[in-house]
């Protein structure tokens, strides 16, 4: 039986100043799934994501465990874990820290110790997939938000991870940028965990959702079941997405013409 792509078991975390960020968080994600991570601000989503590639805690295994492809995260195998789990940060300016787009996308592969030609090829492919061919010499400062997000994703994909973890990837994007980004994301064949407030995107892309509130998992199940439950949504700082008000969606990835329904 293949181990799940991600298995989090009773994860707890407390910040140095004493604030409890996570309490006994447990869930599993199978390979190939696309899961949405929802929750109000301050629920611990970003903290949870930092645990998935070993950045937090300082001593892995202290309270709770994280297994990636069946392998437990310990201080010894952090490099290998980070090769498999690609994390995309919320603020693209934090992630694009190199002088040019080319250098930034090449950062990951060169840290992996690959040969120069391989790095070059990966950079070229990643930029091509993101529609950023020709942006190699551009400085991150001069890119638009959408271009920055795509450059960030290119940088993460250049490491060829099997699991993709994204923190609010569509926040601050204009509608076109958002649609473009979602289309690109759909084509990535990795297992995906997306922490977001963009409920419409979750409806469209994620078959399963996890709701986090106050550091605990309060719900974990098929997206439509969770997001259609108005009480549940409102109780945890969310709301029922508009697309579910007016449409009945049987298959999340097929749009049917609007039908009147009694809901």
């Amino acid at each position, binding site marked *: 039986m293949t181990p799940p792509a991600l298995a989090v078991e009773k994860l707890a975390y407390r910040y140095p100043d004493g604030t409890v960020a996570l309490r006994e968080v447990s869930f599993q994600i199978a390979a190939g799934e696309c899961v949405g991570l929802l929750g109000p601000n301050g629920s611990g989503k970003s903290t949870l994501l*930092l645990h998935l*590639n070993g*950045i937090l805690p300082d001593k892995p295994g202290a309270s709770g465990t994280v297994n990636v492809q069946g392998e437990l995260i310990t201080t010894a195998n952090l*490099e290998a874990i*980070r*090769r498999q789990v*690609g*994390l995309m*940060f919320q*603020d693209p*300016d*934090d*992630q694009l*820290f*190199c*002088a*040019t787009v080319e250098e930034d996308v090449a*950062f*990951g592969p060169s*840290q*992996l110790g690959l040969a120069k030609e391989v790095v070059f090829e990966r950079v070229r492919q990643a930029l091509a997939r993101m529609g950023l061919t020709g942006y190699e*010499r*551009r*400085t*991150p*400062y*001069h890119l638009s938000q959408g271009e920055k997000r795509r450059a960030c994703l290119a*940088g*993460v994909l250049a*490491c060829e991870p099997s699991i993709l973890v994204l923190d609010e990837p569509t926040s601050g994007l204009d509608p076109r940028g958002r649609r473009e980004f979602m289309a690109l994301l759909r084509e990535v064949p990795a297992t995906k965990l997306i922490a977001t407030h963009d409920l419409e995107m979750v409806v469209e892309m994620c078959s399963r959702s996890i709701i986090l509130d106050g550091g605990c998992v309060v719900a974990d199940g098929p997206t439509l079941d969770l997001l259609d439950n108005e009480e549940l949504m409102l109780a945890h700082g969310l709301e029922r997405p508009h697309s579910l008000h007016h449409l009945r969606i049987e298959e999340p990835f097929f749009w049917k013409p609007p039908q009147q329904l009694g809901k």
Partner: protein
Amino acid sequence: MSGIHFGHNHTPYAPEFRPTAGVCVPFAWLAPEWKLAVMLTLVVVTAVMPLTYWFWHVGAGALLIVLALVGRVALKPLLWRVLWLLPFVAGAALAAAWHGPTGPGWPTVAARGGLCLLIVLIFAAVTPFGALPGVLRRVGVPALLVTTMALMHRYLFVLVDESDRMRRARTCRTFMPRRKFGWRLDAEVIGRLFVRASERAERIYLAMCARGWK
């Protein structure tokens, strides 16, 4: 890229002197190492050349003008920058004038200073900054210093934007212009800028770790 605005204090620090930054590089056929070497040679020779060999100074000046024209350097920011730095040169030249006959004399000081200024400014205008860390690394400057320089350049504009935004937000809620407390409020903005910078530095470290930085 023109239009990068550094706040309402007009400081002559412009990120690039070129109106179309980052798109085409003049003298691109000349590697940045060579540009640096040429610049350094010119500066060293100009700094030690006595004024009796005035043809050197005149020649160098003419060369610079030619380079600036060929390289399509934007003249206005360049001249503004020279004007900004001129008082320092003039001041020291004046002081040198008081020194008497044993010193180099004010014309020499002024000529040398002004010329070296122009050399460095034109070098900066024709060399994109991104090339500089690589060159310095190859020359043997320690890695930590080069990384610091690269990160500094990368985030300078981000921080300036943030400070602009903070001051603009403050101005929106300042109904009476209080000159007296201008210091204090500016200092608070700078203080918060440092806090933001250090928080961002933490996040950058995390982003670097996430991509395997050791």
